[in-house]
């Protein structure tokens, strides 16, 4: 049997907050909901932990899309973390768009611990969007290309 390697498989980095989205991803797993294996989850204590450099580093190291998942606004384990993350990411995404980098490659979604189905649906949709965009060429580091 041969594996077809010509098809583009995006690499997606998902930053998930420990308290809501990571548990949501876990729930998606225990409920046997399908979502693409291209999504690599990185667990962070809070969505607010994600520094703009993390997002850019992910692109540097070969990610084609980066998604940040956190608790719904108002539900943050640390009360207000995701409100700060929301402002930061809005400005960062706007700046990436301003530099001409495809805005569909970055996203923020609020996924609670009970929303396994939403997690799977979001990831399916995001992987589809990024697959359509193709490889990340505008924000890649050629030295990191494999």
């Amino acid at each position, binding site marked *: 049997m041969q594996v077809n390697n010509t098809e583009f498989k995006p690499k997606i980095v998902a930053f998930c907050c420990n308290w809501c989205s990571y548990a949501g991803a876990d729930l998606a797993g225990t409920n046997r909901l399908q979502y693409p294996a291209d999504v690599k989850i990185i667990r962070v204590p809070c969505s607010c932990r994600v520094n703009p450099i993390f997002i850019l580093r992910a692109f540097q190291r070969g990610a084609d899309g980066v998604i940040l998942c956190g608790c719904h606004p108002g539900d943050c384990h640390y009360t207000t973390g995701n409100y700060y993350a929301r*402002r930061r*990411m*809005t400005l960062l995404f706007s700046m990436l768009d*301003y530099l001409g980098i495809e805005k569909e490659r970055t996203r*923020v979604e609020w996924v609670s611990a009970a929303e396994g189905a939403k997690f799977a649906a979001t990831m399916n949709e995001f992987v589809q969007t990024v697959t359509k965009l193709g490889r990340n060429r505008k924000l890649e580091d050629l030295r990191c290309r494999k």
Partner: protein
Amino acid sequence: MQEIMKKRASELLLDGTVSRVIGWKAGDFVYDITPAVFESAEEIEKDFVYTAFCGANLSKYLVKESKKPGKTLVFLKPCDSYSFAQLVKEHRVNRDSVYAVAVECRGKADVDKIRDCGVKGICGISEENGTLTVDTVYGDKTLPLSEVMLEKCASCKTRKHAVYDELLGEEGEEVADCDRFGKVRELESMTPEERYEFWRGELSRCIRCNACRNVCPACTCEKCVFDNDNSGIAQKAAADSFEENMFHIIRAFHVAGRCTDCGECTRVCPQKIPLHLLNRKFIKDINELYGDYQAGADPDTRPPLTDFRTTDAEPSIVYRRGEK
């Protein structure tokens, strides 16, 4: 103006009110003026200058100088006074150890623009009522100041100081019709491909000299993220286009909400990269999304990135832009 400033600085040094003066010092040429610290009236008499080439913002030097014993006198142009107020607000400078002297400013000249007008051999400059008289080895030339102003002065937002202890000259007015965001709007209306081409053209010239970081009065971290070998982009020369993008996005992001738009980054860039366009994009976004905010104008309000409203826009607002 220069003589009034010299006289006042010498007086304050001699009567012991201040121990040192931060001002501008003449260089080898009239246009390469550098910021300098003066500690005696003799030094002031010898080297102190204030001409149309004194574009440098002196407020950042206070971070270091104001920690020394005694008071430090600093000369602030209107835009510099906002940077100063922001540094005081962030507790980087102790207000009590600074004697801030506000000086009037009608815009500063850019030597490259003067040269572009065909003026060569510059050996002196004077300004009167918006007209520059450039003394050259080939005789005097007069130019309207408005045509050869620094980028930051061409879109000056205010000629009124945010804070000072003493005022020399006349207090100016806010500039009502300044169009700071014109170029930003123009870029926003382009397609992503055009914007990408524009920024590649600009940022690929970056030589990572770090001048924009070092001059910025908002960049006062003792240890900068870019000095960390593990940041991924600590090298001096950018080895890949990614590093240029990363450096400039992060540099602008780290001063977002704190940038007073003093325009020093663009002034010092040896490669003439319009770095202020990145900062102004953040300022414009903050104004549009979180309400008008001018860093340094108000000592009490929280900067927009350390504050939030439960009703803030979702990041997805970025995707909906441009679709109408």
